[in-house]
């Protein structure tokens, strides 16, 4: 049998080489041993007492935990503490990253020599991300921007420094793509090149951050972590007709620089905290973007799945923790007991999804109701007659649908409202859409009735229709959440995370490793429990060590392509450690000091030398830091599919910059079938809108975006992957809409130049790359144009159809026009086009 070498062992060997280097703790044996425990063990085996073990004191260690005695003085082999860290027991501890052999040896010697323990106090150890944010001193370096001082301090330790500034064109492109997701025009580049330093770039930054397109670009980053989609998923994947309002809410929040703490509060508890603010109600859409199964029968299980979605998403998105790992058992790596998972979940126990949030001011709503009442009054007799006719149909439908549900749901439906428990109310609301008939259902139901019923019904419907002009427009509705009431169902710790295995009841509570404080919960009224208010206030507090750090890191990642913590939704043990912990904390404290302003944070980053440095390679630096963790140069980044599409349309001159509103459905590639679901927006003003406005369907990602690594929208995505596949090449090279874009691009070049190939090449380069081609490029381009024109000419001679601009200026023949399309199309496919430096 072939022996399988355990890779984890290999991995730990690699890791300890690094850790061993970095960690040389000085001091006597006891100090060193206790430092090892403090750094590596007590975050779980301390106050959390995982497995019943508390290693904060010698007595605790001797007493041991569920598995037995942990420390036998003088005898490492008998001490579980040693056996576990040495890998003699399963699972080796700490589970995420075993200790180095030197550390293990230290513990061994320490136990052999009697495990001297500085008994003055218990050792306390807190994992870095759970420690309070402390503003560190800025290293003394000759930089105006503290970011550069922090970075340089680290670089210098390796004998490195920041790279020289990028050239101005590159820098401007970088800023445009980063902040707006759009290329600068050649003219904008020209004027920037002419502008004199030093304020020129700062002015650009201010201008771009003030642009409404900034929100359109950065909203996409947030929508990735918000698992935003506009359809249900599952089988039928129905549209969520008002989900787009949440997308607009995010764009608007970013553009108006809504403080991040408020942004979070609105999304978690906008309905309770700001009931008068319509946008805060839309913000609660964040808590409703879960995938949902519209024909589910086991609705209590569905509710549990939804609660899990909310808990996991909150953990990943706001706290940057893999809270979801503690659903079935205590977290294996982080100090998050399973109980904490359900304590967090309990904040959401009352959540009731709403698709009927009325987005009108109370005055407007009163007006609407008056109109509606008027219509109802005038049609009351018709509607009563209709109701009588429809009654048997409706009853049959109701009974048959009700019959599909399990007993507990049927009971919830049958129980009289006054007697329904809060859980029954939730089940009832969830069942309701399946019990209600659509207009189509009614029509087809009536169709199978007797002829006289049918004709009478039709007649009455006709009469009712004649009052249509009195009926007010449908209410503008939003999608979000409210509570089911002030009372909410109990939450239980679930064994193995299984709904039908409840253990003890739990109350809402924060992560116990961060705070032992109990939430102060009071119901604001009869309709809400106030639980989410308590959660939101805790999350958005400057004292919360995670919320601000996590968003600062996400913003950093947005600019540099990689966070200070490389795992932006995992600030736990299995996540990466920050490459620059002091910088992260300094930025975080600065961010809070600046009123949680994202724009100020952007500005701080964008005006650093680190951001403005060149992306050029430097062999010496690469040798010392091959992954560029220390940021000795700027990272070249491939565009996302969304930015790529916007850029293509912008270069061809077709981009429609209309903002906000319902999503659009640009035509899909031929062969992609949706059976009528996808209603192509045929008007170019609509179909050529920015990518952020394209309908997000769970079961069908927009093909270009999917090919370019748009994440699955079923769960939060912290960092997009970058893959290179032939499918991307096929789409960009062959897909009909791409060819059309190339044609429009070519037509624009023809329109904007004199009839001269040299000028055409120049203009195409300017539009695509905002620079002039060099002599060599000019030569190659001319040669290519000539060759393509020849090929096209031959094809014309052979009576083949060729692809030519729709209008050709005088003096340009078809073959030349076709060649220019080919040229423009190639530029669109180049690396220079899709990479931003």
């Amino acid at each position, binding site marked *: 049998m*072939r022996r*399988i070498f355990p*890779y*984890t062992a290999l*991995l730990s060997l690699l890791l300890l080489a690094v850790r061993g280097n970095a960690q040389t703790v000085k001091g006597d044996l006891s100090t060193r041993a206790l430092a090892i425990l403090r750094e590596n063990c007590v975050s779980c085996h301390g106050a959390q007492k995982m497995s019943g073990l508390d290693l904060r004191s010698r007595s605790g260690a001797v007493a041991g935990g569920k598995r037995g005695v942990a420390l036998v003085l003088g005898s490492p082999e008998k001490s579980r503490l040693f056996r576990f860290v040495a890998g003699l027991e399963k699972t080796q501890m700490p589970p995420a990253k075993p200790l180095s052999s030197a550390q293990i040896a230290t513990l061994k010697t320490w136990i052999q020599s009697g495990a001297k323990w500085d008994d003055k106090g218990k050792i306390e150890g807190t994992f870095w991300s759970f420690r309070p944010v402390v503003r560190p001193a800025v290293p003394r370096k000759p930089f105006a921007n503290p970011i550069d001082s922090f970075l340089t301090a680290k670089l210098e330790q390796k004998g490195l420094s920041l790279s020289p500034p990028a050239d101005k064109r590159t820098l401007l492109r970088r800023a445009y793509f980063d902040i707006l997701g759009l290329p600068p025009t050649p003219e904008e580049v020209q004027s920037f090149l002419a502008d004199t330093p030093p304020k020129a770039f700062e002015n650009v930054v201010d201008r771009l951050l003030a642009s409404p397109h900034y929100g359109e670009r950065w909203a996409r980053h947030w929508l990735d972590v918000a698992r935003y989609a506009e359809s249900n*998923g*599952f*089988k039928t*994947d129905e549209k969520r007709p008002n989900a787009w309002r949440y997308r607009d809410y995010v764009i608007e929040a970013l553009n108006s620089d809504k403080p991040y703490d408020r942004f979070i509060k609105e999304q978690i508890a906008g309905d309770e905290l700001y009931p008068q603010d319509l946008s805060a109600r839309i913000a609660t859409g964040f808590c409703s973007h879960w*995938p949902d*199964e519209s024909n589910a*029968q*086991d609705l209590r299980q569905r509710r549990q*799945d939804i609660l899990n979605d909310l808990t996991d998403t909150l953990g990943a998105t706001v706290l940057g923790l*893999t809270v979801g*790992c503690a659903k079935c058992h205590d977290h294996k790596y982080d100090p998050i007991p399973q109980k904490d998972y359900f304590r967090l979940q309990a904040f959401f126990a009352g959540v009731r999804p709403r698709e009927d949030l009325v987005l009108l001011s109370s005055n407007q709503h009163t007006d609407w109701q008056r109109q509606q009442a008027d219509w109802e009054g005038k049609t009351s007799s018709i509607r009563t007659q209709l109701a009588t006719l429809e009654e048997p149909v409706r009853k049959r439908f109701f009974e048959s649908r009700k*019959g*599909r549900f399990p007993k507990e749901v049927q009971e919830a439906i049958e129980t009289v409202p006054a007697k329904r428990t809060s859980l029954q109310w939730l089940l009832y609301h969830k069942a309701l859409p399946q019990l209600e008939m659509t207009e189509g259902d009614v029509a087809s139901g009536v169709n199978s009735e007797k002829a006289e019923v049918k004709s009478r019904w039709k007649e009455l419907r006709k009469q009712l229709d004649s009052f249509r002009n009195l009926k007010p427009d449908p209410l503008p509705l939003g999608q979000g959440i409210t509570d089911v009431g002030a009372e909410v169902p109990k939450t239980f710790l679930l064994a193995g995370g299984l709904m039908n295995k409840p253990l003890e009841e739990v109350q809402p509570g924060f992560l116990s490793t961060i705070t032992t404080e109990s939430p102060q919960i009071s119901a604001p009224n009869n309709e809400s429990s106030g639980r989410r208010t308590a959660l939101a206030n805790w999350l958005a507090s400057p004292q919360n060590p995670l919320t601000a750090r996590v968003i600062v890191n996400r913003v950093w990642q947005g600019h540099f392509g990689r966070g200070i913590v490389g795992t932006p939704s995992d600030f736990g043990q*299995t996540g*990466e450690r920050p490459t620059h912990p002091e910088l992260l904390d300094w930025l975080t404290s600065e961010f809070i000091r600046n009123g949680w302003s994202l724009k100020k944070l952007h500005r701080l980053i964008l005006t650093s030398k680190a951001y403005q440095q060149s992306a050029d*390679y430097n062999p010496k630096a690469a040798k010392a830091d091959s*992954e560029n963790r220390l940021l000795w140069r700027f*990272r*070249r980044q491939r565009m996302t599919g969304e930015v790529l599409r916007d850029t293509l349309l912008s270069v061809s001159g077709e981009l429609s910059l209309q903002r906000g509103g319902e999503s659009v459905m640009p035509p899909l*590639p031929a*062969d*992609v*079938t949706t*059976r009528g679901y996808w209603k192509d927006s045929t008007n170019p003003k609509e179909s050529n809108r920015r990518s952020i406005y394209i309908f997000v369907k769970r079961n*069908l990602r927009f093909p270009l975006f*999917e090919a370019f690594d748009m994440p*699955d929208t*079923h*769960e939060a995505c912290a960092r997009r*992957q*970058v*893959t*290179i*596949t*032939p*499918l*991307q*090449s*096929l789409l960009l*090279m*062959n897909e009909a809409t791409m*060819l059309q874009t190339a044609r429009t691009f070519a037509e624009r070049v023809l329109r904007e130049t004199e009839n001269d190939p040299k000028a055409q090449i120049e203009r195409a380069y300017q539009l695509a790359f905002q620079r002039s081609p060099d002599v060599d490029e000019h030569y*190659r381009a001319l040669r*290519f144009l000539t060759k*393509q024109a020849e*090929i096209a000419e031959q*094809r014309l001679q052979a009576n083949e159809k060729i*692809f030519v601009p729709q209008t050709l200026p005088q003096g340009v023949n078809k073959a030349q026009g076709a060649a220019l399309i*080919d040229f423009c199309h*190639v530029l669109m*496919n*180049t*690396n*220079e086009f*899709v990479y931003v430096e």
Partner: protein
Amino acid sequence: MNHEPRQPHIPQNLTRREVLFRAGGGFGALALAYLQAQEAVADTLQRPHFAPKAKSVIWCFMEGGPSHIDLFDPKPALQRLAGQPLPPSYGRPITAMGTAENALLPSKRTFKQHGQSGIWVSDWYPHIAEHVDNYTVLRSCWADGLNHVGAVGQMNTGAILSGRPSLGSWVQYGLGAANNNLPTFVVLLDEREPIGGPKNWSSGFLPAAYQGTQFRPDGNPILALKPPSTIGEAQQRSKLDFLTEINRKYSKTRSDDTELEARIRAYELAFQMQSAAPTAMDISKEPDSVKKLYGLDSPATERFGKNCLMARRLVERGVRFVQLYCGTGSQWDAHSDIEGNHAKMCRISDKPVAGLISDLKQRGMLEETLVIWGGEFGRTPMTEGTNGRDHNPWGFTVFMAGGGVKGGQVIGSTDEVGLRAEERPIHIHDLHATILHLMGLNHRQLTYHHDGREERATVNGGNVVKEVFV
């Protein structure tokens, strides 16, 4: 021979370069091919954990849920209890259509024992029955999904909730590509999309390169495989050459960035694929005898038969995983008229599946090709309406052939009426673990670090059903 282990865990510090390696194992095998030459480390990425028994999988997915009690799992007790409700000892399952209280409906089919092994198959599957001595029939499968979307999803991805990678994606991640000019994981549909659509072949949280590629039976098999006819071949070639020229110049001062080089190669591969994929799908040169074997000579079997034949041609060319749907859009879903529905669906699938097995056998390919037949669940012994059957995820049949599978055996059983798996229950995770095992992959070692967890195809469960091949 001393194989280095493949890396079962993604190193935590996932760098751009590493992402690329992994991407390279999928549809974008080119990136890997290029980088392998440069970086020895890449070579250890794609290896089986142990010697595989099967090189490829062809999974004939009968979508909608075929009735095991009318096909492979005869239940004499049902005749006896006909018209009575489910005895109380069975409890009351939550069913999709609320049929738990309904009367039991016996099968109208005639069952016979076949082959040397004497395995029971009903008269709906005469051709499939001819090969029973090649099958392991798993009569005790069970799943968690009550509805189609969850159940189809789980059969593909292991979970009833969306977001996880399809089994084909895991195989691709674990083994990489065997043919650089074709995708490694191909999906063939018959009429429309299965319930749940592309998420059934999604790469979930694995990089996009691992997702299955849908091959269309007509026209261009792959999306945007060829430019419109207004672009000629010489013209396209010349464009690609010019593109490479420009890209090379751009790379000159950026030679450290392998991603740029990978992208250059991606275009080359795309171009090669333009001819490789249609060739694989072109069955016109297959002899008539072969076409007949798959039922291409009859309108009922032509469509699915063609897909089965294409599956063989793809596997021949190194495609590792073919998900082949029969009855997309829940066509096996016989809530009413089980007789009419299944007679039709069985006719559609019988000859093509049997033909596929014969053909693979004749070519000596069956030993290394795992053929799987099954739906997302079975059907209830209780009637729905007067003559239909409801969804049954608690007990149903799947059979496997070839690819190291022991022939002529039945594993497990359902209870007396065929409602629940009883003896040797086999969960979908067990099924997946077994399939991966046959392909040389240990499902506990094939992991991917995602959101703080080492995720695997079998989520938290899965035990290899060793009897399948021992």
